[in-house]
């Protein structure tokens, strides 16, 4: 499964850009990036999902993990998700705890 993730941190905002496909075979790499972002003590986590073509439950688990690691005051947003990806996030009810922007 093709997946590529990069983390950048600037002015307290951690951004993870995810490209390709997130399922059980690739989610561990996303999970590791979330873990690193959490350790940076960012006040906001943005997940740039414009180039995320597929999202399975293993990727959602990493979002739960992000929500649990980052502390309640940290806002988490998923930006630019395609229609099927944002539908999955909504179906799981994650849009109550994670902002969906431009989706």
């Amino acid at each position, binding site marked *: *499964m093709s997946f590529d993730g990069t983390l950048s941190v600037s002015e307290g905002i951690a951004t993870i850009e995810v490209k390709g*496909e997130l*399922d*059980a*075979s690739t989610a561990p790499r996303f999970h590791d990036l979330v873990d690193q972002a959490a350790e940076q003590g960012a006040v906001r986590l943005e997940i740039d999902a414009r180039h995320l073509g*597929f999202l*399975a*439950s*293993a990727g*959602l*688990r990493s*979002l*739960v993990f992000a*929500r*649990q690691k980052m502390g*309640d005051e940290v806002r988490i947003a998923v930006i630019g998700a395609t*229609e*099927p990806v944002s539908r*999955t996030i909504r*179906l*799981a*009810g*994650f849009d*109550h*705890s*994670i902002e969906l922007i431009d989706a």
Partner: protein
Amino acid sequence: MMAIDSGAASAEHTAGQERCKARCAGQPLAAKAASGLRIPADLDSLDLVARFVLELGRQGRLSDSQTYRLRLAADELATNIVMHGYRGASGGICVDGGVEADRVWVRFHDDAPAFDPRTGMKAPDLEVPLGERSVGGLGVFLALTAVDSFDYELVAGRNVSILAIHRSEHG
């Protein structure tokens, strides 16, 4: 009905595919069975499952959204067979599928311990904030809600699941 030739999906698994055809041949679907592939029970195989389903969706002229849903269900089901069914033991998963006038279907056979995926379903509790929610049960939930039908049977000790998407335009 159209049969899918999985030859393109994986050169490495040719031997496995032969074995799959032989073993699947004994249990034809009510409708005609299509050719399929046999993949090892590890997460690297998810890629082969995806390619198989994407090709099936193309041949069945499903919309992008229908193909996405079929692939999502297939990915979740295959993941569970690997992670919860075989758990590191070596084993095979047999995947086949077909296009019929009114539907496109994908079928999985595996020899892991018996498990009806429909019993693993837990709808997410939308009232509980994510920070407190435990994370089990999402995979089966997504798989079951993605497809138009999800059938399971234990046939001669093997788990057999059939996922289908209804075609809107009849071929």
